[in-house]
């Protein structure tokens, strides 16, 4: 079962269509032209080379965050702390980068990435421990640690690491050697998307082509049966936890080192939570998530363009559409699945 099973494509497609229809009805109700708006979304995300670069740039952190949620989800470990982990990952990555002033990029960047991965994983360590050793549901600690992470980064960027010369609450600029190289000049599209693509492949190989991956998926689909078959579910959870923290940390550093080049307050507009939506939209499959992240990113970028255009559709409607699409796909898939399979 490597790809989306056949029958589910239809219901997935129907879900998308249903959400677009609903969106059009809402647009019409508020006096906006649906055709113009939808066309504006498309042209606003891919219409010019710059806009396309923006769309693909955004795919980087979204895809990494989505993978960070997807991997543990397969083992029934619900890491909703990706947002906090990406902040701490970015913090660790920044701290490493700040020390790597004169070091050439070929060495500095990998070190920075490893530091970021370590940061993200560290932030997941406590919830992991609580789940594996204490059987405490991970939803609570991961959620709470999101807030702590935000407060820590807010403190750091406003206090000890604040750049005294800048008016903003941010750190000093990172050494140039640690900046993720841009893929296209004068755009924000950078190596981050390559990192994300590599991560997809690694996740795919691990999940579907390795024994560990088999154990992970078995733990997720029926834990008791898996344990009966000799699978150590605790080990699976540890494994997905390490992967998840790494991916989340990378998501954070990709934004900070790829675009901002400083660690600033609130640098993430909720990538951690958006990643969950993207993973769900991708049916929790690595390659499906790639497509989902492009779609989701296109909606975000297209929505911003649409808001600025003559049609002036408020971007909040597009945010609503992003949620509606996920819900629609899930509901339609489940509803059709129930009716056709006759399974109870």
């Amino acid at each position, binding site marked *: 079962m490597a790809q989306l099973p056949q029958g589910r494509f239809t219901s997935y497609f129907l879900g998308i269509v249903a959400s677009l229809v609903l969106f059009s009805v809402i647009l019409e109700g*508020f006096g906006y032209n649906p055709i113009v708006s939808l066309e504006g979304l498309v042209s606003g995300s891919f219409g010019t080379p710059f806009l396309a670069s923006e769309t693909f740039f955004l795919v980087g952190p979204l895809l990494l965050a989505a993978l960070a949620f997807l991997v543990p989800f397969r083992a029934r470990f*619900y890491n*909703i702390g990706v947002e906090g982990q990406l902040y701490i990952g970015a913090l660790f990555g920044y701290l490493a980068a700040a020390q790597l002033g004169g070091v050439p990029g070929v060495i500095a960047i990998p070190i920075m990435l490893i530091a970021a991965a370590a940061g993200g994983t560290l932030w997941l360590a*406590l919830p992991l421990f*609580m789940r594996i050793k*204490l*059987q*405490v*549901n991970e*939803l*609570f*600690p991961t*959620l*709470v*640690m999101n*807030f*702590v992470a935000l*407060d*820590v980064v*807010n*403190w*750091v960027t*406003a*206090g*000890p690491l*604040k750049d005294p010369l800048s008016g903003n609450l941010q750190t000093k600029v990172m050494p140039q050697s640690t900046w993720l190289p841009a893929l296209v000049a004068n755009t924000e599209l950078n190596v981050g998307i390559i990192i994300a693509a590599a991560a997809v492949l690694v996740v795919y190989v691990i999940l579907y082509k390795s024994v560990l991956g088999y154990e992970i998926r078995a733990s997720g689909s029926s834990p008791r049966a898996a344990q009966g078959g000799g699978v150590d579910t605790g080990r699976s959870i540890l494994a997905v936890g390490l992967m998840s923290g790494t991916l989340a940390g990378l998501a954070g550093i990709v934004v900070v080192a790829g675009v901002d080049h400083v660690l600033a307050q609130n640098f993430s507009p909720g990538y951690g*939570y958006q990643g*969950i*939506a993207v993973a*769900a939209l991708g049916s929790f499959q690595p390659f499906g998530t790639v497509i989902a992240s492009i779609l989701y990113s296109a909606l975000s970028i297209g929505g911003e363009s649409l808001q600025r255009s003559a049609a002036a559709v*408020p971007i*909040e*409607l597009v*945010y*609503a559409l*992003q*949620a*509606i699409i*996920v*819900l629609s796909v*899930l*509901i339609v898939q*489940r*509803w059709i699945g*129930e009716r056709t399979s006759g399974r*109870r």
Partner: protein
Amino acid sequence: MTDYGSLTVSILAASLPLTMPILYASIGEVYAEKSGVLNMGIEGVMSLAAFVSLWVTYSTGSYFYGLLAGIGAGMAMGLFHSFATVKIGINQLIAGLMLYSLALAIGDFGYVIATKKVVPYVRPLSPVHLPVLSGLPVIGPVLFKQNLLVYLSFAVAVIMGLILYKTTWGLKIRAVGENPEAADSAGVNVNLVRHLCVILGGTLAGLAGASLVLGYLGLYATGDTLVAGRGWIAIVVVIFARWSPYKAIAGAWVFGLGYSIAAVFIGSGVFSSLGTASGYLLLAVPYVFAIVFILLFHRGTKSPSSLTVPYKRR
């Protein structure tokens, strides 16, 4: 020369309106989760209800209609969530998180459209000074000079606790959450109970959002800066309080108090010698406290057995 006594009274008094929305929302979530359904979206529901209640109060001049509209908005969101999770049966965690985004976006959208004409503000409900009690030293100004919605939140918590533990309804809810098969055999309509509990959860989240506006700030701000995480805190409080409405009072108050301490210290400049940034660390304290608490007392923290598991009649 800082007047620490007056500072303490300030902290305590400010903690109650901060506790109010958290408490309403967490009671609702207790009921939903006790019946076996997780609703992670109450942050968004609160935001939407806040906007609706603000707009209706502003347009009609009636706090009553505004409150009712906010509650109704929450109820509608609860209905949607129960449809998606109980009727259709999609993953409850994802459904809740998407509900958060959706409700938030709807509320913000409404505000954007509404503010093209005018920016709505309402005067929050005035404090009610309870006759004799508010004159008491120290606790008087803290406990007895709050507005109706604050008092109501505590009343609701107690009443909902009584219902949950002392009535047959409550018994059915708890049975459904612990052992749906057994409850089904005993003649309880499991899914109906869940529908009602989730709707109730949404309703109380709606009340929470309305209380933020009508009973505290009188305004709306987009981008989730109004509810500012209190919906998520309510979910945390449910676990913190071991799914007990009574303990939720204490749990919600821990967070209300924590925020109040941090904000009052920031406001009074007491810690300013530590640097203005130290305020952020102060804000993290209640969360750290919550984690430490659960670490220490994890043994007593067991969720309802069927939480997040959809039920299908065999």
